């Protein structure tokens, strides 16, 4: 009887892993390997693609679109920082001063995201248009030069990115602050810490894992976003996501699109690892554990 029981015991972890493992294999690993393969092919839709180990797909893509890669990471950084600046005070206020209505405030913060993304972006275009309800009065009052515009600029793209990914920053920070034991803060006051010192030495360090999780959840998708640059940007604001999208869907240049995607992925992973190193691995695990 010992044999089968032992076997069962040994099999259990595999069986537990099976659903998630299969899921990852079918929808992540296989497509990823396939794309890696495509990124080294040459060809076109009519004649088909052949595996030629064409590493130049990478160098050519980088030469032509390297500045778009850099811009994507830069916009990603700007939007992530903007998200932290906006999200932290909001999350702080809701967690500590929200009282009975915490969930109401959170809900209000998330409310815009129940409206379709397309509708929100189009309404931005209506409001921010050159001679629209916001800019026209300011121009008439002489506060802005006549040719000032917000749409089709880097500012509009970063603002759009910040706006669209804000909840991904608010929620983890809120969770980190909300979990905090208030008695720890009281203890700090009892030990004659000033308000600033309490924040700097108690609240902020305890909430950093939340910030860390928020950064990962915003920086990665923001850097590869293409919708905001498409709708709110001009010719000087193209992000790498737009290039990949165009290469894949409009030009059917699957090899270039794949090579660019892998380059972006490598850069993002490098960035995240460097960031994790700088903050200490413990925080990464802690953040991942939440």
């Amino acid at each position, binding site marked *: 009887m010992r044999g089968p029981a032992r076997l069962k015991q040994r099999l259990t972890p595999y069986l537990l892993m099976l659903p998630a493992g299969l899921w990852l294999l079918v929808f992540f690993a296989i497509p990823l390997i396939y794309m890696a393969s495509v990124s080294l092919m040459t060809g076109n839709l009519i004649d088909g693609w052949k595996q030629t180990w064409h590493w130049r797909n990478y160098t050519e893509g980088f030469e*032509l679109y390297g500045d778009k890669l850099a811009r994507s990471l830069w916009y990603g950084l700007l939007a992530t920082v903007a998200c932290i600046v906006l999200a932290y005070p909001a999350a702080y206020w809701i967690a500590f001063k929200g009282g009975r209505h915490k969930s109401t405030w959170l809900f209000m913060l998330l409310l815009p995201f129940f409206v379709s993304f397309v509708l929100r972006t189009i309404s931005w275009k209506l409001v921010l248009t050159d001679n629209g309800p916001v800019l026209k009065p300011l121009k008439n009052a002489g506060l802005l030069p006549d040719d000032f515009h917000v749409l089709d600029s880097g500012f509009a793209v970063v603002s759009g990115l910040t706006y669209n990914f804000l909840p991904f920053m608010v929620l983890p920070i809120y969770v980190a602050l909300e979990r905090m034991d208030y008695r720890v803060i009281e203890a700090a006051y009892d030990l004659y810490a000033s308000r600033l010192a309490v924040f700097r030495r108690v609240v902020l360090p305890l909430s950093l894992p939340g910030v860390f999780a928020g950064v990962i959840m915003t920086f990665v998708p923001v850097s590869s976003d293409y919708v905001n640059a498409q709708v709110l940007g001009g010719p000087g604001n193209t992000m790498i996501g737009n290039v990949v999208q165009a290469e894949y869907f409009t030009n059917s240049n699957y090899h270039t699109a794949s090579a660019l995607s892998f380059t972006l992925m490598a850069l993002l992973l490098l960035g995240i690892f460097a960031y994790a190193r700088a903050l200490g691995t413990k925080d990464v695990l802690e953040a991942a554990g939440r």
Partner: protein
Amino acid sequence: MNAPHLESNAPRLDPAFRRGMTTRRGALRLFGASAAALALGACGIPGQGGRGKVNQAQIDAFWKGKSRRGRLNWANWPGYMEDDRATIKAFTKETGIRVDYKEVIQEAAEWFGKVQAPLAANQSIGFDLMVVTNGIQTTKLIELGYLAPLDHRRLTRFAEHAGSRFQNPPYDPGNAFTIPYVSGVTGIAYNTKYVKDEITSIAQLFDPRYKGRVGMMSDSQELGNFGMFAIGADPEKSTPRDWENAARKLREQRDQKIVRKYYEQNYIDAVTKGDVWLTMAWSGDVYSLASDDVKFVVPREGGTLWTDLMMIPKTAANPVDALTLMDWLYDPRRNATLTEFINYVTPVPETRKFVAADAAEAKGEDRADLERLSRSPLVYPSDADLAKLRTYRVLTQQEETGYQKVFQPIVQGS
């Protein structure tokens, strides 16, 4: 209920379990590496080209056993149907075929990207009829065998009423897969509230005076043609050297920040609101979609003449209904009603007398509109008008790759 305390209760790992993990890891690593090597070396993606020729037997085979189903899903561009969908209502009333009409096409390349994967996999795209411009994408759709071959025995009105220029075009010999919906001209639209000079030339799109106020199109063939007009080359006879020169000119225009944005169909909104003051534009849109301040001109260097084509994807669920509609639209009386709204070049020249008759019956502003329409060179162009216009160059696969490499990065800012 304090979460952190739970961590101390976490089960300690059984040593046997740990040993298992190392072998498991080894197995996974081996499996992953071999799968990756296998896949990376895979021989490629087969080509699908060379399917652009059909014979009668193939046509019969496609249509055999297919019959009218009483419904139809139609994908079209904005501004191509009356706001109240009067033409569709009339069609439904006469034939009993219900039409689900969607304005989902904004740009030929983008649309091709959307439908390519399902059509390659022989899956439905949810539409039985779609309208795509002649050019790179239509050539590919034909070449890749994504379109249903047309049964011309059921397109008698097309044979009878289509203008000779609209039959048997070089990009689709014998109209084997497509028949025209409308033709149109790409020229310049400008908002007279902001532009005080008269716009007559493509050179004005490159004038630094309009810095940040110029719209160009993102479609590489539209953009490329205007670049070539600007350097005095004939797009139809252009060479790769002309493309390079045109691209340089277009890059200059972009880098001097003259171009505000590269647009799909949405330029019309931008020029109406004044975000751009002058922009590349399609003739009929200006009449049917823009405000009265917006004027359309064909520049003196020339404009692009294109044709939007009706076609049936090979996976259509209701192809007979689609064919019925295609033929029905070639009835001059029906087509005249549609033309009166959309203001594009109709493939049915006989509509002109119906438009003139409608003008005689109408009053006031409507009458003036219809009279203008019946005389408009943008709806009924004369041969002299057409001589000024150029179409897209028909490109081979090899040429197309080169062409796209030259013009596509401009829109992406490279």
